[in-house]
């Protein structure tokens, strides 16, 4: 894939149209090739995961009754702001979408578009029975989606009808645990290594 010289495993494909590789990725690649570089990359990942888990900003996306419990979770008694969760109105500034409530077939393309507008890394919490699998609206129903994971990939499912605000907070904590264990940079390095080999 590289042009001339010894075979080097690159983290990203070298663009052939003359544009440049992003400096941050270049830096990570360089660090990885230093002695003890893997530990350095893992430490960088831990710091990034630490920051991402402690400042999840959800999109205000309440569809139906579960939105009321989500509002209670952001209210006075169960303050989600203690976990760094600040609701944002636009998907461009959000990295979490809490799908709270039943999603109809008419609404599905809108949810998909909103999810696509969110920048990476992004996470999805499916709150309540209706978003998980259609819930009480599964049978004899012509208009409700049987679960939001038919249109967007979901990270954490929170059951309940509606789940208590504490249950939603526990779902956010489970997501934080998942984020803490992520290895995005290492995975990309491994993929590049496999592709180069």
């Amino acid at each position, binding site marked *: 894939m590289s042009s001339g010289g010894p075979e080097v495993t690159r983290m990203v494909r070298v663009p052939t149209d003359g544009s440049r590789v992003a400096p941050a990725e270049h830096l990570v690649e360089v660090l990885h090739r230093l002695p003890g570089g893997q530990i350095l990359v893992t430490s960088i990942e831990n710091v990034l995961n630490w920051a991402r888990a402690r400042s999840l900003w959800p999109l205000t996306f309440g*569809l*139906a009754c579960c939105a*009321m419990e989500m*509002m209670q979770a952001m*209210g006075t008694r169960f303050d989600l702001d203690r976990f760094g969760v600040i609701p944002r109105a636009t998907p461009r500034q959000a990295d979490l979408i809490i799908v709270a409530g039943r999603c*109809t077939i*008419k609404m599905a393309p809108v949810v998909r578009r909103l999810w696509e507008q969110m920048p990476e890394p992004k996470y999805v919490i499916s709150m309540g029975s209706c978003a998980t699998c259609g819930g009480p609206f599964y049978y*004899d129903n012509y208009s409700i989606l049987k679960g939001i994971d038919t249109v967007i990939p979901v990270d954490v499912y929170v059951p309940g009808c*509606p789940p208590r605000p504490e249950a939603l907070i526990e779902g956010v904590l489970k997501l934080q645990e998942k984020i803490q264990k992520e290895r995005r940079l290492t995975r990309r390095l491994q993929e590049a290594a496999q592709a180069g080999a």
Partner: protein
Amino acid sequence: MRSLRTEELILNMGPQHPSTHGVLRLVVTLDGENIVEVQPDIGYLHSSVEKMMEHRNYTQNIALADRGMDYLAALVNEMAVLRAAETLADVPVPERARYIRTIFMELQRLASHLLWLGTYGIDLGAFTAFLWCMRERELIMDLFESVTGGRLHHVYFRLGGVNEDLPPGWTDRCREFCHYFLNRLDEYHKLLTGNPIWKARTQGVGVLTREQAIAFGACGPVARASGLAWDVRKSHPYEAYDRVEFQVPVYTEGDCYARYLVRMDEMRESTRIILQCLDQLPEGEVRAPRVPLNLKVPAGEVYTRVESPRGDLGIHLVSTGGEFPWRVKIRAPSFVNLHALTEMMRGWKVADIIAILGSIDIVLADVDR
């Protein structure tokens, strides 16, 4: 100088918007900042509730009614569905159950108006109102949880009464809450009612005249703020409403401020109703004996109505003598009130869309069912 050529802009306030209280899409035609026309696009929460009710018996429909329709008035929806079935099947309801049902419906009305006030405040920028209303709502939900077991969806009413009796000590807690809440209501008045910013944003904005209200069939606080004195609790009393004294607030200006004042006064009247019911609560059983869960309602049709926090909720029930209803048609108050939106918004500015939309207090599950 040649005059500037202006075009009308079509703005889409999409289904995802922090202030549309659900998934409502508004297609707004603007001339600069002035609104020419507003076209609501609904159906983003249509849950085919009326079809589902035809495949479930009346007890299962209670579970569907309190989440499929207006989820903020869960107990009132249960009452609506049960009132139709009990009228058609002539089911006796003991007195204690009637009073308990009235207390819970009024508590639900309080919770619904508190949520409306909180979200209306946050739409207009008063973030404090939201936090305080959520705090009061938590107390009401605690009261609900100790009796019905649910915070938002209860499934507490049954054919012939309610499911279980009140636990001991609950009436004292409820009284304590009512007195505490009356003090809080005075605080909300001090915070919002005299505030010049609040008045500037809501007074005179979005006027609905009495003739327009009658023409659109508006109901609930929207109609009562326009001078139309229509309240189902007074005109067709049900449960214990004919045995308690309460007033129905009516204002004549028809603007957002009047709708706000109507709901604040309604909260005070609801607290009075709850206190009177607690004083008059008779002893006895809370559920009529020998009423089966899969009751077969005799053939016929009936139209009954209850007063939900949004207005006049009507149920047209057609039964052919079976365990499942043949047809349930829900006359939803928010659906009817939403029709008046274009008239109310014509001529105002973009920032007033939020003020007017918030003041009619729609719940999208009620509009779309």
